[in-house]
């Protein structure tokens, strides 16, 4: 067969995803303009089919309530979801997520946020602890309520995401009006899963949120493994598994973030063979128990919860990641230029080693 005429002559798509994150270790609130500007520097890493941000510290007056961001296909979906929420929670406040009409964001879903308190008399899952209860409700809505998805479910935090470039999403969600002590941003270039509102990053559960550049080739095995532990993947994007795996490994199984990183990016067997016997045994045990939670494929991820930000690469560093420090702030990004765009003089800039997490925590 002959190749089509001038088959090589096409406008090449030069994208790859882009991630950016900043944590103010002293909890100083950073206006939304900053992460937006940083993401704009990496505009060409995405292709307009997904953008999003996570922000921590944005609902200080309602910090004791679980905040659910809901994404619904239509009003009916929202009503169905609200019924479910009423069943499981006392609703403190409910309101549309403030948005701005913009020409580039067409046909957005119905976006609503609920501040919730767990009912004293729970209708179901009575024996579970409060966080497991939240996880169960989120899984229930995403799996069983047609046309409704929970975009975030933490306290004093929220995820704002959708189809568009990150700057479009920021404009649409009016993120310039928020202030947060941790921000992460994502610019998406969907490769093998659809570019839809629920599939944009960040992926969240409880206070966890994840932004990811790369692809999780082990999605199938991770998803089946999570399913055995009552985590259901419904968002049609590989990154979703990372959020749920972290919740399982760190919150439920009490692994440290460092241990969870070894589960995700395990050392090579030849490196293990050179370790002292006790370490060898530990790494073999970790692999035997959590082999199905190992992440295969290229990734640079930023993981955040209320009190830290962690950057992690796959063990052969198939995606870029740069870390920088400036006073009490720590930045992590796909490109140094995005950090330079929003910082002054950086104290330190470096590219972390493959498979070794960089964890920046709040002071105190």
């Amino acid at each position, binding site marked *: 067969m002959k190749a089509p005429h001038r088959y090589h002559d096409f406008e090449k798509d030069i994208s790859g995803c882009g991630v950016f994150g900043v944590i103010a270790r002293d909890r100083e609130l950073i206006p939304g303009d900053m992460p937006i500007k940083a993401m704009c520097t990496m505009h*060409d890493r995405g292709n307009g089919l997904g953008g999003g941000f996570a922000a921590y510290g944005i609902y200080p007056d309602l910090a004791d309530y679980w905040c659910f961001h809901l994404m619904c296909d239509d009003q009916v979906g929202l009503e169905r979801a609200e019924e479910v929420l009423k069943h499981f929670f006392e609703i403190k406040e409910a309101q549309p997520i403030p948005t701005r009409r913009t020409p580039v964001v067409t046909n957005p879903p119905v976006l609503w946020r609920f501040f919730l308190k767990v009912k004293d008399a729970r209708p179901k899952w009575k024996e579970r602890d409060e966080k497991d209860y939240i996880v169960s409700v989120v899984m229930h809505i995403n799996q069983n309520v047609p046309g409704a998805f929970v975009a975030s479910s933490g306290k004093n935090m929220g995820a704002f995401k959708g189809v568009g470039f990150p700057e479009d999403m920021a404009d649409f969600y009016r993120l310039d009006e928020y202030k947060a002590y941790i921000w992460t941003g994502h610019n998406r270039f969907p490769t093998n899963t659809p570019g839809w509102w629920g599939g944009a990053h960040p992926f969240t559960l409880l206070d966890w949120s994840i932004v990811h550049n790369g692809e999780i080739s082990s999605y199938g095995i991770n998803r089946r493994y999570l399913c055995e532990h009552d985590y259901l993947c419904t968002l049609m994007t590989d990154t979703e598994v990372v959020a749920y795996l972290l919740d399982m490994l760190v919150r439920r199984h009490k692994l440290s973030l460092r241990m969870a990183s070894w589960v995700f990016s395990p050392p090579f067997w030849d*490196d293990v063979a050179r370790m002292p016997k006790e370490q060898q045994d530990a790494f073999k045990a970790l692999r035997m128990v959590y082999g199905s939670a190992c992440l295969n494929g290229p990734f640079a991820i930023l993981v955040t919860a209320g009190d830290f930000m962690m950057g992690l690469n796959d063990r052969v560093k198939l995606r870029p990641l740069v870390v920088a420090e400036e006073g009490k702030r720590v930045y992590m990004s796909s490109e*140094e230029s995005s950090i330079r765009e929003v910082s002054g003089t950086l104290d330190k800039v470096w*590219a972390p080693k*493959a498979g070794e997490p960089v964890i920046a925590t709040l002071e105190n």
Partner: protein
Amino acid sequence: MADQKLVLDAKGVYYRQLNERIRDAVTGGVREIELNNVNGQRYIFTGLKGELSLKINGVPGQDMAAFMNGPSIRVEGNAQDGVANTMDDGKVVVNGIAGDVLGYGMRGGRLYIRGDVGYRVGIHMKAYKEKSPVIVIGGKAGDFLGEYMAGGSIILLGMFSDKPYAPICGRSLGTGMHGGVIYVRGPVPDTQLGPHLTSEPVDETDKARIREMVTDFALELGLDAQHILAESFFKVKPFSHRPYGNMYVPC
């Protein structure tokens, strides 16, 4: 416009516009360009030919000097990923650190980085007739340095590094290399080398080549060449030539 020096402020200029302005100036006869406030713009000097010189103040974006054939570039700052991708000829000097996949498939010219570099630097480098690319790294390197290398030279100094506790290079140095040579200042642990590779002390011919390359590197970056050359160097070279030569056309 010819023979004049062009100075541009790149702050906030989108990469396409910036590269258009550079190309228009070069077409108009400008031979010397200085760019200020560069921050993340991609493809700077990609594919440009001839005797041109460029100074960049800031952090250039991905694929700077890709396919470049002749010009020289000096970066006062750090560089990102993909510098000198498939470069044909010319010289790139980075007075800072640089990212991943530098000098990918490089076919000629020189790439000098003062500090640390990322992963997969100099992979698929090749040489042909009089063309033999050179990469000199003042700091330390990540994994897969010189992977699948087919020609040219990489010199790894490990001296001007921000990573005091890291080994001089990551794992899998020179994996699958079947041409060219990697010189390392000081011994390389065998565990850092790719399969079947070993390192050995350099001979007189190697020393002369190292001296020439290091002297030029030091001159460009204001470093003390004698101090760099005071340590012994080791070389890693391929254990086989054309390992797949018989695969499709058996001889």
